[in-house]
């Protein structure tokens, strides 16, 4: 029976980050034996078993959502007091001043936004312009409250119809960081609590679209809303996170094709956070958004790079899925992320049976083919 070497590297290097995800991708590992079909070939299920064991020991999907804690550096007698001073500064000096900045920001914002929203009901163009400016201002206050150091590369997004912006997703703060530069309209999951309140009042003014992950019919409704928005001349440019879920900023999961079949130009944006200062990944299974924000406000800084990349259009003969993969490739290369062949929504549901059927089909075909060889 054939040996099973695939697990060699995985069990001894589980805590190292392997360079190439393709080493793990299942389809290439089934060998193609030749010759007449014998009993030992039918009984030998070791390739399939090895794949299953490989998935149990380490799999590329779970890795995308693991928040890797940084190496503890405060472990000796010289560094520990230094770290303690750092904690004091962060919690007792930085945090209160940030809270003050944020509160100030809210006061300024609300005292301008509410009058503008109510009084300028008739003059839509002016009102929209002012609201956009105010939302950008509020996002700048937010970013300042985490001492955000954001470096923008590339040309600023322009307001044109028939274009859509896509970016990789690490946390809800992605939206805030991008919004401080340009007021985007965004498509988001409706959240409960104070976040939901903000979404339904302020974000409505920049033109946001809501979806509900759990509702089945929702996709068509959302697709229609997207198309309408993109056609509108005066609407804010639309920002979409095609991954559909927050990933830990080391990997990208597969992009959903919804953004790529609207028939417009897609402008990719790549975002990469510098983990030395804080890990900006929002692990929604482990923390609420409030806890996440508090964690950011008690860290030193949020440092990230934002690249506005060259707009892409659907090439002749390319399907929307291929287009999505091409754009994902561009973003992953720019931000230094590894690509993973899984759909982000597998966090909430099981994979569809067609993956298993594909494997069954290729096994069945190879078996039948070998039967012909007599």
């Amino acid at each position, binding site marked *: 029976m054939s040996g099973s070497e695939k697990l060699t590297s995985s069990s001894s290097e589980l805590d190292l980050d392997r360079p190439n995800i393709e080493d793990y991708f299942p389809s290439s590992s089934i060998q193609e034996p030749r010759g007449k079909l*014998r009993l030992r070939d039918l009984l030998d299920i070791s390739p399939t078993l090895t794949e299953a064991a490989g998935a149990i020991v380490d799999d590329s999907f779970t890795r995308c959502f693991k928040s890797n804690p940084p190496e503890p550096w405060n472990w000796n007698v010289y560094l520990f007091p230094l770290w303690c001073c750092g904690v004091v500064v962060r919690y007792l000096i930085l945090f209160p001043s940030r809270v003050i900045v944020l509160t100030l920001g809210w006061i300024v914002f609300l005292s301008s936004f509410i009058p503008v929203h109510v009084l300028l009901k008739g003059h839509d163009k002016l009102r929209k312009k002012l609201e956009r400016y105010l939302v950008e201002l509020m996002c700048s206050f937010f970013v300042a409250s985490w001492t955000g150091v954001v470096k923008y590369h590339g040309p600023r997004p322009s307001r044109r119809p028939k274009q859509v912006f896509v970016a990789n997703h690490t946390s809800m703060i992605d939206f805030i960081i991008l919004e401080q530069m340009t007021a985007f309209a965004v498509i988001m999951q409706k959240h409960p609590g104070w976040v939901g309140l903000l979404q339904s009042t302020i974000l409505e003014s920049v033109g946001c679209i809501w979806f509900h992950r759990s509702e089945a019919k929702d996709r068509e409704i959302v697709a229609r809303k997207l198309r309408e928005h993109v056609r509108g001349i005066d609407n804010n440019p639309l920002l979409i996170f095609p991954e559909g879920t927050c990933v830990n900023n080391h990997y990208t999961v597969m992009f959903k094709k919804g953004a790529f079949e609207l028939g417009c130009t897609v402008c990719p944006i790549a975002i990469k956070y510098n983990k030395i200062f804080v890990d900006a990944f929002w692990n929604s299974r482990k923390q609420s958004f409030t806890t996440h924000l508090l964690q950011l406000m008690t860290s030193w800084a949020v440092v990230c790079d934002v690249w506005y990349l060259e707009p892409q259009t659907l090439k002749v003969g390319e399907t929307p899925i291929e287009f999505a993969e091409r754009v994902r490739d561009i973003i992953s290369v720019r931000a230094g992320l590894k690509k993973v062949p899984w759909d982000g929504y597998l966090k909430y549901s099981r994979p569809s049976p067609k993956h298993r059927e594909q494997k069954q089909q290729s*096994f*069945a075909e190879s078996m039948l083919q070998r039967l012909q060889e007599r």
Partner: protein
Amino acid sequence: MGNTSSMLTQYDIEEVQEHCNCTFSQQEIVSLYQRFCQLDRNGGGFISAEEFLSVPEFAVNPVSQRLLRMLDGLNFKEFVAFLSAFSPRATTQQKIEFIFKVYDSDGNGRVAMNDMLEVLRDLTGQFISQQQREQVLTQVLEEAGYTKDSFLVLSDFMKVSC
């Protein structure tokens, strides 16, 4: 064993190593424990079928249901023993024993044509008819010197693999 905490003691590691016949090094056992804790999200000391199926790479595997029957309710020590057949240090004998266990789902030490048909059905799905499967299996069994009513035991598996 400290299944509710995430710290393994040296005694724990040695106990696990002995249980799996030293097919894993101590470092590998520590890594496997980290993985076990990662998969065992509710901290019950064993990984439930749901938690295994939340790994999409495992869920799409054709023999996942068979393996789930073997994996159900295993604590960490048994989990490592289960995986020991996949270690590079495992002997061919151990690997064949594992494959035999996958076939022998009722654990009576004998594999009948029915068991082999079931595994073949898992692997080929609806792409080959039941009749064709029976035909192929009967044919290769007869070529190897068995009939379709014979039972295979572990020594038969060893013999066939050589």
